[in-house]
């Protein structure tokens, strides 16, 4: 790229610095190992507050894109962010930094689980954690749903409830439910104004 102050999308980079590949890798290693229960707050702290690679606004836009795309959000974010600053190699090192350490840690945990999973105490601890994790997920859903249900009538709640029933009650495969509902929901959003 001839003009280093611009990203390949043509938008000026207002943020101060441009990370090297090894900086990208190290940043995402730190984000991944500190990100208990979701890596987003850590990614923001590292990228916006500490390194100033992106403004808050740019971060929000990149993350909104990562949430909208299918698949794991933080994984998408590492690719979107890495490719913006380093093309394909940047995306690869950011992804490797994000997934490498957790992979190793979780494999060790899996080995421990296969050896001690039948131990009564461990099994009870895990069940307690799973029950709490289910509760946290309910809280996430409630927070997401709150704004949708206070607005005047719209298609949102109907679509959300239909997706819930299809997957949770009728046990339909996710791809069917998605292909059935997403176009309807997008059409409602298209014609809404």
């Amino acid at each position, binding site marked *: 790229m001839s003009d280093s102050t611009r990203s390949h999308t043509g938008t000026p980079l207002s943020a101060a610095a441009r990370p090297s590949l090894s900086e990208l890798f190290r940043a995402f290693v730190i984000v991944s190992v500190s990100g208990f229960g979701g890596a987003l707050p850590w990614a923001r702290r590292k990228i916006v507050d500490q390194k100033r690679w992106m403004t808050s606004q740019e971060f929000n836009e990149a993350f909104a894109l990562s949430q909208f795309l299918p698949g794991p959000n933080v994984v998408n974010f590492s690719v979107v962010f890495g490719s913006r600053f380093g093309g394909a190699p940047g995306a690869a090192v950011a992804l490797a930094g994000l997934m490498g350490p957790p992979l190793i840690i979780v494999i060790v945990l899996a080995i421990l689980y296969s050896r001690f999973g039948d131990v009564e105490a461990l099994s009870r601890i895990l069940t307690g954690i799973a029950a709490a994790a289910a509760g946290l997920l309910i809280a996430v859903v409630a927070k997401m749903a709150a704004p949708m249900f206070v607005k005047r009538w719209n298609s949102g709640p109907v679509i959300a409830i239909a997706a819930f029933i299809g997957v949770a009650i009728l046990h339909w495969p996710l791809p069917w439910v998605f292909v059935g509902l*997403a176009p309807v929901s997008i059409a409602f959003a298209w014609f809404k104004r």
Partner: protein
Amino acid sequence: MNDSPLLTLAGYFALLSLFAVGGANAAIPEMHRIAVDVMHWMNDRQFADMFAIAQVSPGPNIIIVTLIGNHVAGFAGAAVATGAMCGPTCLVAFFVARTWDRFKEARWRMAMQAGLVPVSLGLIGASAFVLARSADHNIYAATITAVTALVGFATRINPLWIFAAGGLLGLSGRL
């Protein structure tokens, strides 16, 4: 159909990754359906255990696919499942990221963004339901879930404290 577990893992998770709007949390019911109901790789309790391990591990929660893959086919299974879950969606992210900014004001982009929110909300709600059913075998566990939901909704407490409390209650209680 083939009977190689690695091919099965790769096929299922690659497909799943492309429909999981809302990330790891939206994909839980489909993983549960395949791993427990369709393929009988594990029982309900093992699935809930793996979810718990993925939650308390650092890093993205999608790491549960690594655990499922490892359970089915060892290290190779772990690698294949993780690669299948991340590969297709990473390619999509890579190519979309290059063009997305150009369509910032486009009506179709806004409609797609707004239209997918309720779908992913319903999917994450289904995840919460499936997990609660897997984890809550008795009134004790159900109480933990209910109290956690209230605390999580009303406060911004670090989830690690909640997991620690849940684990301790599990150890001391009658789960």
